[in-house]
């Protein structure tokens, strides 16, 4: 593979440090920052290679950026690289979130602090609603997909059915519909 215009192939340590930095600086969604770091700043991949790898990561289960850390590490340094990417991405945020969790556990009996966390939780719920609306809105032009989404929603949120059997029922139906409609 020619690497004209690229930085040299990153070492395991560089992969770890790259994703450690990304994990510690990405607030509210790591993907836009991941692209900037990996393509523009560190030049590990060009834009096309990044988009291609991201396509794979979005197709597979798991968080996009988490899969990306594994895929990029694997591409450059095999399994040790994949492990370095994943650990680098997760170790910083894990320690920070545990620190926040300890603060929550120690303080949430205090009524004022309880009010603060209640407001935080209400705001986080609002962010989720906005995200759900952004994902649902484009489905209004695809009635068959919208029906699948609504059935999935009703089954999980209202009937509280377990995820695995629910997905085993609805996913093949949904894929079949996509195939029939688009063919």
């Amino acid at each position, binding site marked *: 593979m020619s690497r004209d215009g690229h930085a040299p192939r990153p070492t395991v340590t560089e992969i770890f440090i790259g994703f450690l930095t990304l994990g510690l600086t990405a607030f509210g969604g790591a993907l836009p920052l991941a692209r900037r770091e990996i393509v523009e700043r560190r030049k590990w991949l060009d834009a096309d290679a990044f988009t291609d790898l991201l*396509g794979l990561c979005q197709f597979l289960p798991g968080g996009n950026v988490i899969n990306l850390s594994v895929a990029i590490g*694997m591409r450059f340094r095999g399994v040790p690289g994949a492990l370095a990417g994943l650990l680098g991405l*997760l170790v910083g*945020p894990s320690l920070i979130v545990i620190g926040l969790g300890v603060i929550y556990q120690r303080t949430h009996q205090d009524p004022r602090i309880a009010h*603060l966390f209640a407001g935080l939780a209400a705001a986080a719920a*609002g962010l989720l609603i906005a995200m759900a609306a952004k994902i649902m809105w484009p489905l209004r032009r695809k009635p068959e997909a919208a029906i699948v989404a609504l059935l999935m929603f009703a089954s999980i949120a209202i009937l509280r059915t377990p995820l695995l059997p629910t997905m085993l029922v*609805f996913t093949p139906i949904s894929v079949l519909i996509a195939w029939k409609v688009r063919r």
Partner: protein
Amino acid sequence: MKNDLLSLAAIFSQLSLLAFGGGNSILPEMQRQVVQVHEWMSKADFSALFAVAQAAPGPNMMVVTLIGWHVAGWPGVLVTSIAKFGPSSLVTIAAMHAWERFKDRPWRRFIQLGLVPITAGLVAASALLIAEASDGTWTLAAITALVALVSYRTKLHPLWLLAGGALIGLTGFGQ
């Protein structure tokens, strides 16, 4: 404790492989297991931990780590993290070789298209369940509605909206 660790491993390794479309799609099942099936915490605590994790940097599934911590301390963190991030990472490694061959196949596109409404329904379910557990009073429901509207209509950074919600909450108004 040992049983808790085994349960954490079983729950999160399954969720790892079902998390199509990212972490928010598995929140309802996580809540069902953690609150309803194992009764490790209340609905409101689950929502609070989710919110705390959203305020931290990094990938948006750090609530997983917090649940492990809450249930079984450091061993819980270790078991939960390996269970949640291990299986999907192994799938990624395994799929990388095959990706060149299958990325342009029509079935790959139909599976991906078919997964869109599944993810959409699941994220909507997450939103309802988290809001239901978070909005005990009219003020809190108003914070949720306001944040949803601003986040939908503007590009304001989510961290500002979380901080705003926490500040309004801190006043204790209407709670």
